[in-house]
């Protein structure tokens, strides 16, 4: 199941007069039209005569998020004549709606703060969690194959370089993301290889010295491209790679909004940074490890590079992976691109339970790891036991943390919040809601005994909260849990009757058993997928035999994630995207001009 609606769903969803699909089509979403992916592929030039191109460049960057924009600006700085081609009409991709944080190890801000990062320690931590089943601490490459190890080395070595280079050329100014939250740990600070006490997050610095989010990051990069007069071809969907008789990529064909096509010559290389495939129902169904109900990626992220890359002979990797996050089920069903995800369920008097009323996860663990619990297949019951999870909370959490998504702010109400007097009434109301959503969830129901189990789980949780230790899932044990809870996602409202800081574990407070109780239905979602063609440490796309496909490069969520499925810390998506965009741009700009004929 994906965030994209089927024809049947679209008919049901569409009110009498307004069609969402019409607007998706206008937005450049290919799946909104017929033959969405059939046109994607490769054209090979035959014969002696050079093919005709409408415009000629050295390097073409595809996509206007962090990967595409960084690739374009770096290739330009390296002396290439560059164009950026974007499928949507809006610049910035998913980066522009993100928090805009980038994870950069060994960055200059850490050094300025006196933090000495040991390359081997960090590389081994990265290797251990990205490729846990292969990890061997005694091996020189930590047990990893050469290419996977080289990618981690490239990320470690290049991350700081790209940040400094973008700053030096005035394309993107950075600052540590330790303001206003304070220093924060990465997403598993208990790793034995982790020796850096503070995190490695950076984000954009505005002119006035304050921090900017994803929209500011993309504003700066867009301004840098415009200043360099790099053409930004918006509303151009790349549909074909163009190859010469030697199999080298020498350009692309793109379809514009008016259905006309344009052929663009790339004398040195084409760099894809076109996003993942969250919004491609078929790819999600075929490759993801379980049901995905939607995601935050922009609607145009439909995995176009998967089709063109494989048509060019690329080897695919990490197709079952994604940057995962929980989403509110009803929101996911209503938006073509989920507006927001549940980074951490807010509240201390709050738990997540499954259809049996059973807690199944540390609610304060990071979003990527927490969401994986949705994919547990119960081999005894033959079901996705945690397909949907129910965020259960009381009046304290509703008032103290109202406004922290997905809790509605004080004075407002949200139809996706279900309120009842107690556990039995809540079970009845949830059952009714699930029945009304059944056509969109595979008929998911609550198990009999839900209310009784929920009541028992609340009692057990309350005892843990009073003692300060969650014996089941270790909630609040890690610094990550405590700091991201109290400083960010569950920062308390002022002026309520409730007190914070009175329990031994700040992430836990007993849930009021007398009610009322509230529930919100959560489902698995993505920030975006992160599988696609495999690259090497130069950003070159590899073929099935591990050899570079000449003239084809990639970075960001459209390629097989160089860090595997593991999310190292805040900015674990954008940091690698920027590093490999930089490497791809340098490689492409330095490549020989490839013959068109």
């Amino acid at each position, binding site marked *: 199941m994906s965030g994209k609606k089927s024809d049947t769903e679209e008919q*049901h969803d569409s009110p009498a007069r307004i069609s969402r699909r019409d607007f998706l089509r*206008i937005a450049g979403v290919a799946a909104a039209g017929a033959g969405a992916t059939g046109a994607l592929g490769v054209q090979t030039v035959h014969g002696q005569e050079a093919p005709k191109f409408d415009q000629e460049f050295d390097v073409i960057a595809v996509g206007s998020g962090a990967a595409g924009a960084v690739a374009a600006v770096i290739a330009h700085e390296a002396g290439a004549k560059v164009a950026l081609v974007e499928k949507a009409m809006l610049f910035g991709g998913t980066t522009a709606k993100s928090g805009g944080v980038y994870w950069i190890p060994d960055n200059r801000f850490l050094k300025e703060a006196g933090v000495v990062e040991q390359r081997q320690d960090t590389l081994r931590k990265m290797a251990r969690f990205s490729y846990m089943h292969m990890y061997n601490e005694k091996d020189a490459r930590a047990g990893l194959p050469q290419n996977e190890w080289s990618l981690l080395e490239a990320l470690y070595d290049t991350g700081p370089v790209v940040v400094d280079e973008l700053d030096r050329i005035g394309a993107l100014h950075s600052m540590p993301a330790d303001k206003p939250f304070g220093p924060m740990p990465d997403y598993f600070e208990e790793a034995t290889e982790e020796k850096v006490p503070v995190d490695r997050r950076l984000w954009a610095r505005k002119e006035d010295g304050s921090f900017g989010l994803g929209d500011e990051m993309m504003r700066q990069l867009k301004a840098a491209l415009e200043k360099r007069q790099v053409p930004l071809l918006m509303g151009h969907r790349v549909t074909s790679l163009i190859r010469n008789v030697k199999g080298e990529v020498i350009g692309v064909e793109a379809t514009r909004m008016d259905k006309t096509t344009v052929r663009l010559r790339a004398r040195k290389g084409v760099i894809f940074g076109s996003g993942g495939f969250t919004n491609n129902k078929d790819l999600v169904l075929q490759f993801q490890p379980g049901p995905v109900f939607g995601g935050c990626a922009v609607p145009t992220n439909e995995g176009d590079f998967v089709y063109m890359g494989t048509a060019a002979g690329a080897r695919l990797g990490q197709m079952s992976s994604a940057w995962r996050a929980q989403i509110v089920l009803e929101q996911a069903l209503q938006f073509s691109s989920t507006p927001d995800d549940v980074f951490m369920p807010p509240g201390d008097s709050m738990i997540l339970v499954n259809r049996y009323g059973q807690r199944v996860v540390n609610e304060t663990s990071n979003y990527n790891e927490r969401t994986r619990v949705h994919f547990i297949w119960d081999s005894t019951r033959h079901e996705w036991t945690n397909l949907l999870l129910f965020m259960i909370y009381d009046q304290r959490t509703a008032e103290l943390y109202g406004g922290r998504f997905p809790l509605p702010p004080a004075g407002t109400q949200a139809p996706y919040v279900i309120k009842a007097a107690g556990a039995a009434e809540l079970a009845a109301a949830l059952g009714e809601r699930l029945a009304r959503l059944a*056509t969109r969830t595979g008929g998911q129901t609550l198990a009999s005994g839900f209310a009784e189990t929920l009541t028992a789980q609340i009692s057990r949780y309350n005892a843990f909260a009073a003692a300060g230790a969650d014996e089941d899932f270790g909630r609040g044990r890690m610094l990550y849990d405590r700091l991201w809870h109290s400083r960010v996602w569950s*920062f308390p409202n002022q002026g309520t009757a409730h007190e914070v800081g009175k329990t031994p574990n700040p992430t836990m407070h007993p849930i009021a058993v007398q009610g009322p109780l509230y529930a919100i239905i959560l489902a698995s979602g993505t920030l975006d997928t992160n599988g696609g063609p495999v690259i090497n440490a130069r950003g070159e796309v590899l073929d099935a035999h591990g050899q570079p496909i000449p003239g084809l490069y990639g970075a960001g969520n459209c390629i097989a994630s160089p860090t595997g499925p593991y999310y190292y810390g805040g900015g674990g998506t954008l940091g690698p995207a920027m590093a490999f965009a930089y490497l791809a741009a340098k490689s492409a700009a330095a490549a020989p001009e490839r013959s068109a004929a």
Partner: protein
Amino acid sequence: MTAASELVQTMALVSCQSAGTDAHRLPTVLTLHDRNGNARHAMGAARTLFGEEPAVLAPQAARPCNPFQSNFEGAPAYAGYSWYLGSDSLMPEPASFGDALCQLELLLGEEALRNRRGVVLHGYGQGAALALALASYGAGNVTGLVVDRCQLPRIAGWTAPSSFAKSLRCLLLGNGSDEELRTRGIICEYAGGGVAPPEWMRSLSTSEDR
């Protein structure tokens, strides 16, 4: 359309709802905030403009303008939301604009808005653009528009239909040109020209009584 699909369509929006002192005699106000707005502020603005008499429903857009908004110490207490992407309210990003239109059209079919006196769409900026677009589709039982400007959004590849309700009345809160609406048969009046919104609302119900 099944009950389930209707439910799915109308379940995601946070909203403020306020009963009016004379709600049964007046249209219900559906107030739509601007970019970086929220439901509580929209409710306050609507009450200031229309007084206490009409019922008001203030839905809140779902797109937080800042993913970390008000979630940490030192952040501004104000939490803003947007209906659609794009910094110019008259040039929306199409997919998110379409999402918002679909949600609001379904909202117009909700029980709270099934007022026999009809619904007045009220909005500023993004809210005004959505109100005009909704009205252009003839969505819901819309009997009036109260907007700060009356230009329909510009989206390449999209033309607003002209299914406006017959003799739809529009009260303009700003001083922009009303030519685009007048050519579509909408009766335009100006709040700046001495027309007070509460009296204008009452005139809507009076004309229906006649």
